[in-house]
């Protein structure tokens, strides 16, 4: 009895292993997907960046291929592309989805929905806007790149470069912020500069559908300073025509929404920075009192810049920092709080307090 059963079990196990699993050399890995508007109205131009698996790591030579197909539906375009290659397309290693600016200025929800719904696309895919077109961004092939599309992956994930101008957005975050009340999504913008260079230093602010506003590189840096902690960047301080730059070793920011009862709300930001002096345009000795002055000047400049950024964002009517959600999370009148917030948002005031603490003047005084 027992033997018979175990025999049956083993036979069934053999069946299990046989379900159509494809060997790795029969697969092509899609590393990035680009979505652009097609020639005809209402169609998509889908581009896939493919990596071809190679045997020896030491002799690796970047081998990649780009496929393009136009169709009114994303899945249709992908199925059609299956006829253009001899191997099975595998999306499970796809790391970035680039939306062409044409799509991002019209409607991102369709593409987002597709990316989140498909089971073999990860929820930690990086979303970004490609300029001028997603296809051009995919075609970029930096000299330093060894593995196809690796440069994009490294840049976006923060594993490689830690640029203060890059904000990365995963698909689950994009979806969360599109649907959530009281917070609006953002997307980083990747610009293709020729065939071998790209530039990621801007972010786009979106409502739940399309791009409403694009921040400049400097504003992007300040946005990142406000939205995450320990941003590594340099910040300026000017005293009497002399320019100083300090490097932020540690940074943190938080905010409070004040005086909500009187019908007018103020958002008070508090930024704390611990820095080192990195650059000085004058040969003068940096004394202790000078360092304090630089600190004060730095605080003033930072406060002004951030205030300008906050006001700019406020006039666009968007809420990328999630102030509305923050307000709702601290009020128990669940049915009315979002209505109240709408009223408060219109007359919002901002205060910024920066605490810059420059401890060292670098290796020299």
């Amino acid at each position, binding site marked *: 009895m027992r033997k018979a059963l175990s025999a049956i079990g083993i036979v069934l196990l053999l069946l299990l292993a046989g*379900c159509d699993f494809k060997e790795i050399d029969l697969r092509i890995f899609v590393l990035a997907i680009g979505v652009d508007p097609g020639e005809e109205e209402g169609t998509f131009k889908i581009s896939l960046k493919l990596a071809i698996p190679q045997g020896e790591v030491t002799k690796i030579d970047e081998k990649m291929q780009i496929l393009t197909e136009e169709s009114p539906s994303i899945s249709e375009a992908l199925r059609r592309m299956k006829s253009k290659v001899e191997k099975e397309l595998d999306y499970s290693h796809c790391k970035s989805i680039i939306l062409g600016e044409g799509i991002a200025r019209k409607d991102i929800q369709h593409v987002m929905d597709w990316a989140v719904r498909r*089971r073999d696309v990860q929820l930690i895919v990086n979303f970004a806007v490609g300029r001028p077109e997603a296809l051009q961004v995919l075609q970029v092939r930096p000299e330093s790149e060894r593995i196809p599309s690796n440069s994009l992956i490294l840049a976006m994930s923060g594993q490689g470069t830690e640029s203060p101008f890059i904000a990365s957005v995963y698909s689950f975050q994009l979806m969360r912020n599109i649907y959530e009340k009281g917070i609006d999504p953002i997307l980083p913008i990747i610009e293709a500069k020729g065939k071998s260079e790209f530039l990621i230093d801007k972010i786009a602010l979106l409502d739940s559908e399309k791009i409403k506003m694009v921040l400049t590189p400097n504003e992007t840096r300040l946005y990142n300073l406000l939205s995450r902690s320990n941003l590594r960047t340099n910040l300026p301080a000017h005293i009497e025509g002399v320019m100083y730059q300090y490097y932020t070793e540690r940074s943190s920011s938080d905010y409070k929404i004040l005086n909500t009862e009187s019908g007018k709300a103020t958002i008070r930001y508090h930024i704390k920075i611990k820095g080192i002096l990195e650059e000085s345009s004058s040969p003068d000795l940096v004394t202790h009192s000078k360092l304090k002055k630089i600190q004060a000047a730095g605080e003033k400049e930072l406060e002004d810049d951030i205030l300008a950024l906050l006001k700019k964002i406020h006039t666009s009517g968007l809420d990328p920092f999630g102030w509305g959600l923050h307000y709702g*999370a601290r009020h128990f009148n669940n049915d009315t709080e979002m209505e109240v917030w709408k009223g408060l948002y219109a007359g919002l005031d901002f205060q910024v307090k920066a605490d810059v603490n420059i401890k060292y003047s670098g290796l020299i005084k």
Partner: protein
Amino acid sequence: MAKSRYFYCLFLMNSLINIINFVPRELIDRRFDGALFSILIATVLGTLFVYIFTVLIAKFPGKGFPEIFTPLLPKLLVKPLLVFFAGLWCVAGGVTLLSFVDITLRYVSPNSSPYTVVIGFLILVCICCRFDSLSLLYGLEIILFVTLPLIVYGIVKALTNPDFNWDSVLQITTYIWHKPDLMSLSAATFSFSGYINLAIFNRVFHGLKLKHVWILGVEGLLVLLVTFLVPIGYFGTVAIERHVYTWFSTADSIRIESFIIERMLFIFYFAYMTLSLVSVIVHWHVGLGLFKGAISSTKKKSQKAEQWKEWLILCLFSGLVLSLIWMDQYQLNVLGIWFLQIRWFGEMFLIALLFYCYRKVRRQRL
């Protein structure tokens, strides 16, 4: 004879397993209408149930339900009751199995046939649930020992992620003062119903003495809060309802930077597949024991006949699962919700029955 700590293992297994299934979905569907308050009430009720049940069953050392009920309840009533409860346990295991087949097809091997997967699982479960109770408890302890660190790692990783949105979580907690509802209450109490497996496993516990029952309450509450709130931190208060398997989506949203595998999903899948198969085995072991208690006659039968009986019952259980595999995700969900409801009332009924038996025994002694 098993030590009391195996009781905690049974409890822990049940409360951990509720993450994957219908419990978070049910709670999340009612996140704006009193799910949180229901969780608090369920914690109190659940702990109370555990306490009452363990105190009562400790009066019958070494006896499972069939041995308790047969001499104390009317003959005509015992058999249908045992069959009913056996059915409940069978469905408990079956529902877990069906949803795990669905998860496997969705996340791991989309191209294989559901029958291959379900038959693979069924063979394992049917072979294992015929083991004796004590070895199952030992096995359960070891499996928990392996999977618990992985699950804890996953939860810590989930909570320390900078992309976790605490404001969304706080926003949901401001909905605490909505009145609780029955659906989410019965869903939340599932986290505490590991104790009910004592129906058969009490055969190996002689004089179960529990110290610190409040620990079970705290553990259940923590697991429920994590189950309910962590996915909201990842998907927001609104978009969360669009995810089918909220916890698998959550695991998919966590990236492990410094490990061989980048995706938390696979670690999570491994831990939960092991744990849910063990839970199915435990549930069916209890169902099998109850069913056997219902159809066994007083005269002694041969070993061979017993074995055949067991296989017959297991075939019946497997047949039920196989006959339900046609269901799509919405129908499966409805089945799960119905099960959660009926199970809760069944639990209350069981405790009442046990109380009745206890009273009767005391009166006989006096």
